[in-house]
């Protein structure tokens, strides 16, 4: 009886049964009437003969459900039996369940981590159809770069493989619910009118954009609020439609609210509003750029939804063809511009290159831990199998079907796995709690929230069931395949040698895997320690930063420049300030975007005529304030102004790469394009970390802020005392200059560095170290179990040996030797495999796990010694116990 059949039959109602009984009674009564009884007598007689109607109905109902009951009852019986079996062997149960808890929990934790950083799909319907489309060229730094509006329109109108292509920018703007409120900085999306329709997102309230609202630049200031902002800032006001909010001071009318759960198209950013892309120019007032006309102003992100049935390859072929057409039609702007289309996963990996290999490494380590855990349970089951075999043979003999026995064994294994899975959630939660320490240091709505959510639970369940198959299948098959009579008759001796061999391989494998885990953990730990103690290459103490964006108040570039100059002066005048500086980007706050550079005299490979180098724009106080030494030449001066010759400071890597062995001072490069203006190098700065702590050594360029003004800058001050105490006087200074100026991201460099580096490294180190420790502990348990089991098997032999004169020491040596051989074999295999793993690690941490790419030779002997010591101990304890056996008892054994 399958569940399905039961569900179908369940359709028969109680009324149906009642009617059937009524029909029976009627027929019985009629027959009696036909025999001559009067109507009432016949009826009564029929009823009397029938007996208790209600009881019959009840019995019928019971019979109807009986089959399901039988089914459930079977499972319950199996479960009860399995539970009793586990309860009878608490030692076995404890070790098996705890082993699995560790293995499953490790995978649950790593999955939660990977899910948040990479795997979670977009929050739109049918997310797999959404592709990231972008432009790239041989000179570009990024695998997928932005598109210009004109190019986007051509792609949108000509591509037939897509249901639709949408474009957006996601600017930081000042958001104010009331006209006179101080705006707070937040992120939203300026989107093309087809955005919500193509993404399949229905507004929760109001409507999405009409096509005409995205036609005339600057004409339609309408906005959709995110569900989150609507609830948090407007108390989920149902009459919000028609209200006015301000973005960068411009009044926008609210026309809709996006549904809960939709946060935009970025996995970390929780966009707070959506406005038509046509408002771009008016909202951002980027000086002198015409975003809708210039074909080489490539700032748009494009997403496309594939038509059902269309493949990625077809879409790519079509996009490539369109790009070639564009290149022919607009050779000035589109030379060598190729169009790429990536899946969401590919785009995420391309967007954060270190993440994917890191996650692959963690997933492999977690899988290794699961393997060791399953090997433990398999080993335990194997050593119990002679006992089980006899019990099962008995049950087979008294007529239990083989499928029934297999089902019983599967139930037991699944029960163990599920118990392990439940406890594993605890381990997983510990991991999630650890990851929660990682936070993105920003005032903007960008979050990485780690959770033990439904996806993680499902994965844990899947891992638990997988583990049940891994550890349970082989022992289960072997146990039921047993020859009845042989098992019933024999003592344990039959087939033991073969089983122990299999188990020895398992244990040797466990040790090998544990060695690899430990080597990786040690590499990572020592490498990160070295990296942290080496520091980022600049000062992290006594620094306070704040970011300011006068563009949000529609300052002209000249006004912004004057504002920053006066602010820096005011800051320097504060008594507790040693020095103050302005910088466009803050180190460790993510790698800044690149600038196109053509070093003079450098021979590029064919097809390439420039490089993209990350750069920052800084003022004359920057190098002193952040404590970055100038190795050669000079830093910037106040005289490096707009009308003075263009200058630059480059870092060591850059100088070495393009002018190896020469003095870089006085050398020149072009910026912005291959025909851009010349810039002269006046200084070489010491290399430091720029974007992230385990980045490889990078080429980097500093350009003077006075020659390339920006409308959004960080003020960085070097405090004499506690930098945090400067926050208030600095805010006051800003308010004296402009009371409406939004100030954000006020924090000390110590905090930024801690959040971006120390904490992240710490979490990874702890995670990797925990995985290594888990692997070691589990394999020790495995080794201990095997040696103890083997010793118990040989009790009789040991007794004989002792009876004929073997000393306790001889016995210990004999038993330990077996464990030792296994441990050494495992260690050897593990060390060989580790050499490969170390090479893999270098791919994960391009700066080398040690930050400097130095081979870490201490690790191997260190791990070897630790593993040898603990495995010997694990073998010694049972050996010692075996040697204490009383020979006469031992001889009587079994």
């Amino acid at each position: 009886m399958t569940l399905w059949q039961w569900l179908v039959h369940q359709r028969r109602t109680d009324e149906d049964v009642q009617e059937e009984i009524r029909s029976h009674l009627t027929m019985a009564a009629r027959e009696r009437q036909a025999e001559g009884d009067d109507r009432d007598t016949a009826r009564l007689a029929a009823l009397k003969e029938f007996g208790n109607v209600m009881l019959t109905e009840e019995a019928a109902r019971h019979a109807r459900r009986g089959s399901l009951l039988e089914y459930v009852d079977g499972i319950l019986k199996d479960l009860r039996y399995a539970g009793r079996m586990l309860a009878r062997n608490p030692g076995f149960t404890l070790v098996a369940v705890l082993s699995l808890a560790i293995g499953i929990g490790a995978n649950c934790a790593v999955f939660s981590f990977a899910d948040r950083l990479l795997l979670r799909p977009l929050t739109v319907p049918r997310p797999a159809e959404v592709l990231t489309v972008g432009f790239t060229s041989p000179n570009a730094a990024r695998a997928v770069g932005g598109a210009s509006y004109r190019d986007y329109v051509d792609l949108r109108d000509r591509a037939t493989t897509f249901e639709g292509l949408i474009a957006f920018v996601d600017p930081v703007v000042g958001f104010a619910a009331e006209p006179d409120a101080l705006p707070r900085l937040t992120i939203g999306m300026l989107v093309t009118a087809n955005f919500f329709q193509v993404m399949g997102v229905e507004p929760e309230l109001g409507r999405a954009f009409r096509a005409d609202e995205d036609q005339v630049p600057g004409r339609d200031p309408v906005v959709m609020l995110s569900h989150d902002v609507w609830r948090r800032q407007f108390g989920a006001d149902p009459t919000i439609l028609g209200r006015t909010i301000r973005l960068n001071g411009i009044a926008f009318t609210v026309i809709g609210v996006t549904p809960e759960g939709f946060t935009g198209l970025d996995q970390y950013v929780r966009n707070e509003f959506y406005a038509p892309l046509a408002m771009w120019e008016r909202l951002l007032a980027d000086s002198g750029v015409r975003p809708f006309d210039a074909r080489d102003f490539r700032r748009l992100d494009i997403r496309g939804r594939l038509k059902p049935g269309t493949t990625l390859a077809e879409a790519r072929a079509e996009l490539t063809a369109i790009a070639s057409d564009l290149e022919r039609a607009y050779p000035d702007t589109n030379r060598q511009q190729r169009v790429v289309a990536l899946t969401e996963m590919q785009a995420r990996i391309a967007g954060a290159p270190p993440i994917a290999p890191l996650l692959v490494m963690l997933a492999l380590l977690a899988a290794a831990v699961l393997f060791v855990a399953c090997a433990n349970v398999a080993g335990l089951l194997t050593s119990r199998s002679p006992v089980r075999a006899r019990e099962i043979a008995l049950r087979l003999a008294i007529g239990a079907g083989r499928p029934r026995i297999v089902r019983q064994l599967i139930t037991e294994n699944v029960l163990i796995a599920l118990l392990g899975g439940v406890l594993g959630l605890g381990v997983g939660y510990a991991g999630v709690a650890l990851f929660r320490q990682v936070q993105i240091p920003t005032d903007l709505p960008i979050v990485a929230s780690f959770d033990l959510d439904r996806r993680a639970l499902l994965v844990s369940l899947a891992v638990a069931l997988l583990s049940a198959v891994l550890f349970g299948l082989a022992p289960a098959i072997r146990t039921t395949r047993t020859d009845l009579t042989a098992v019933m008759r024999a003592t344990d001796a039959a087939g033991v040698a073969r089983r122990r061999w299999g188990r020895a391989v398992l244990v040797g494998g466990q040790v090998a895997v544990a060695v690899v885990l430990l080597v990786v953990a040690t590499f990572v730990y020592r490498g990160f320690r070295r990296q942290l103690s080496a520091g980022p290459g600049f000062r992290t103490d006594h620094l306070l930063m704040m970011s300011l964006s006068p563009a949000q108040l529609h300052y002209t570039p000249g006004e912004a420049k004057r504002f920053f100059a006066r602010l820096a002066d005011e800051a320097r005048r504060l008594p507790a300030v040693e020095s103050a500086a302005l910088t466009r980007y803050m180190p460790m706050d993510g790698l800044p975007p690149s600038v196109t550079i053509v070093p003079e005299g450098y021979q590029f490979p064919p097809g390439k005529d420039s490089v993209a180098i990350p750069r920052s724009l800084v003022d004359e106080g920057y190098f002193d304030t952040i404590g970055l030494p100038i190795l050669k030449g000079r830093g910037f001066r106040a005289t490096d102004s707009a009308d003075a010759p263009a200058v630059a400071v480059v870092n060591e890597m850059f100088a070495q790469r393009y002018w190896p062995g020469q003095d870089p001072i006085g050398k020149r490069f072009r910026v912005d394009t291959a025909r851009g203006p010349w810039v002269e190098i006046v200084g070489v700065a010491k290399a430091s970390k720029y974007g992230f702590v385990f980045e490889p050594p990078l080429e980097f360029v500093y350009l003077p802020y006075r020659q390339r003004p920006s409308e959004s800058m960080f003020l960085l001050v070097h405090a004499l005392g506690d930098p945090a105490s400067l926050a208030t006087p600095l805010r006051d200074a800003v308010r004296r200059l402009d009371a409406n100026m939004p100030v954000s991201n006020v924090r000390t460099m110590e905090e930024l560095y801690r959040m971006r580096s120390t904490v992240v490294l710490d979490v990874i180190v702890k995670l990797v170290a925990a995985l290594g420790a888990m692997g070691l502990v589990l394999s020790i348990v495995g080794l201990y179990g095997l040696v103890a089991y083997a010793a118990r098997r040989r009790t009789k032999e040991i007794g004989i040996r002792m009876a004929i004169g073997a000393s306790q020491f001889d016995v210990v040596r004999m038993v330990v030797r077996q464990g030792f051989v296994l441990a050494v074999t495992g260690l050897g295999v593990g060390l060989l495999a580790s050499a490969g793993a170390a090479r893999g690690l270098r791919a994960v941490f391009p700066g080398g796990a040690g930050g400097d790419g130095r081979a870490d030779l201490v690790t191997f002997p260190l791990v070897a010694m630790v593993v040898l010591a603990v495995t010997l101990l694990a073998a010694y304890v049972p050996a010692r116990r075996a040697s204490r056996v009383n020979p006469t008892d031992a001889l009587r054994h079994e």
Partner: protein
Amino acid sequence: MPKRSAPGDPRLDLLQGTLDMLILRILQWGPQHGYALAQAIRSHSSEVLRIETGTLYPALQRLETRGWVTAEWRQTEAKQRARYYRLTAKGRKQLSHERARWTEMVAAIGRIMNPDLLKD
């Protein structure tokens, strides 16, 4: 629950599982409703076997959920609505299985009860 039959009562309690077999056997002659089934068992057993309705209907239900019979509402010749049960292919198979078992069991019991009958 079948009542314990009093000593001397010609009606016999059915061995467990035998009722199912009897029902299947009678249905082999064609679809039948519950009342007629009870009557048929009684008359074919020369009034020895009387089926309690409280046993019959749950049994029919059980056979139906196991897929050995199917049921549908139809009119009797006397224009009375009744639930007709029909043997399925699965039920036919089950019947032959039970018949074989039954024969085997009768023979086995017979060997024990009347060993002398088999000696020759």
